[in-house]
């Protein structure tokens, strides 16, 4: 395990870089996914069509192809930026489709009777939405949204493998190819880094789920 212990600083930098990929993708995918979900449940037919087309295409396309498209397709159109931005943008686009479906399933899990009752006692649309439907929908959204995001944390390794540079994956690359260490200890270090992220995220999610759980 010397290659790992001697290069803890490299791993630490990579760990932080991976966390930054994850952080940006978390925020971005939640925003974009919520927007697409709003499209998918809106009364405007063309927005709905766009939303379901987005989800169908993105969800059935491998993340790798989305990333290749960002990194090799967009430059052909004259859009040039760093691999980091391409990678994070690709991960955001890919995850947004799953976020959208998680949110939509949360909204659909609220029974129609809740909104009907709210309307029956005279609440206007905004209050029905903000006081009755959304509070229940958001709670129901937490577990699926959590697993979507944890899957995204793991997918950040794909972005790393794609060549963002400086992240946990690249730390392993540097140690094995540039410095010639054996793969097994180095990759064990990489694996531990990702396990720390996913297992602690899983534990955190369990706590949040318990907090927001509702007895129905």
């Amino acid at each position, binding site marked *: 395990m010397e290659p790992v212990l001697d290069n803890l600083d490299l791993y630490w930098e990579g760990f932080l870089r991976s966390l930054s990929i994850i952080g940006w993708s978390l925020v971005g995918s939640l925003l974009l996914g919520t927007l697409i979900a709003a499209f998918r449940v809106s009364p405007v037919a063309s927005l709905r069509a*766009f939303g379901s087309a987005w989800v169908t295409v993105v969800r059935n396309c491998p993340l790798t192809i989305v990333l*290749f498209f960002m990194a090799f397709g967009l430059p052909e159109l004259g859009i040039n930026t760093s691999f980091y931005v391409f990678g994070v943008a690709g991960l955001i686009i890919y995850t947004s489709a799953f976020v959208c479906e998680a949110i939509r399933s949360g909204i659909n899990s609220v029974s129609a009777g809740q909104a009907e009752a709210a309307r029956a006692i005279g609440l206007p649309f905004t209050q029905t939405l903000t006081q009755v439907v959304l509070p229940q929908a958001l709670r129901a959204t937490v577990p699926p949204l959590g697993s979507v995001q944890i899957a995204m944390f793991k997918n950040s390794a794909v972005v790393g493998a794609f060549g963002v540079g400086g992240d946990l994956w690249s730390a392993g690359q540097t140690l094995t190819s540039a410095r010639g260490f054996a793969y097994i200890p180095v990759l064990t270090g990489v694996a531990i880094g990702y396990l720390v992220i996913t297992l602690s995220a899983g534990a955190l999610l369990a706590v949040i789920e318990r907090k927001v759980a509702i007895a129905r």
Partner: protein
Amino acid sequence: MSQTSVLYDAPGPRAVRRARVGTAVALLAFLGLGVLVVLRLADRGQFDAELWNPWFNPSTDTFSQVWELVGKGLAATLIAAALAIVLSLVVGVLLGVARMMLGRVLRVPVVAWIELFRGLPVVVTIVFVWRALVELGIDVSVLPGEPALWYLVIGLTLYNSVIIAEILRAGVGSLPSGQREAALAVGLTNGQAMRSILLPQAFRVMLPALISQLVVVLKDTSLVAVIGLGYLELLRRGNLISQSLDNPIQSLLIIGTIFIVINYALSKLAEYVERRMGRASVSSAGGDEQVPAGQGA
């Protein structure tokens, strides 16, 4: 609109009008965006015949070559995915049953194994398997096919078998507890109850989730294209083609479409099976584990 009825009341004439106006406005906006993209593509010469001809014009000499390579790549992808899902099913059922049947102490290593591979990114698992097997000098060439295929398949199996074990556990958990109690009451042992009462029913409930998992496996085979493992599956073939033709947008579009069509068909199949069963699938039946259907990479 029945799905979204929780959000909106039945629309009156004004709401209908507003929705129509909104539809038109949004449509115009999308059209405008589309025109911008098309103009940009045209501006950059992306509609030039030489970029598309190798794919669509049978009279070019590359046409048959390109599609033959794609065919080979698709076959390689399907073989890897099929092997991985079958192996995952076998290993996953063993793991799932072990987790459910073993005692509190004996279960610990199984649970640890499941948590370990569930928490690892599958791309890390694949690279680990590949590099570790090579480094330890373990020869996979006794198996039919090239070694790279088996590194991929073993990596995918380690990840997906664990997911299937969890799907199975959720499936058994979703059965009424009376099933097991009745089986024990008529004198079946724990093992017999699992084998002949619980598992057959759990498999039925699991089937849609299993098909969704196949989508994940198919998508994950394309990971070899980013890790440099020399297995020429669909995406890697596509990348090689796009490098020699110098048309990344066109080639990726075609490879992406092939993936999307296959995966879309599989997810529709999963939905159809789920409807036919007339029961909630595992993932919505509320086992204590959430099964993320269809994400993968």
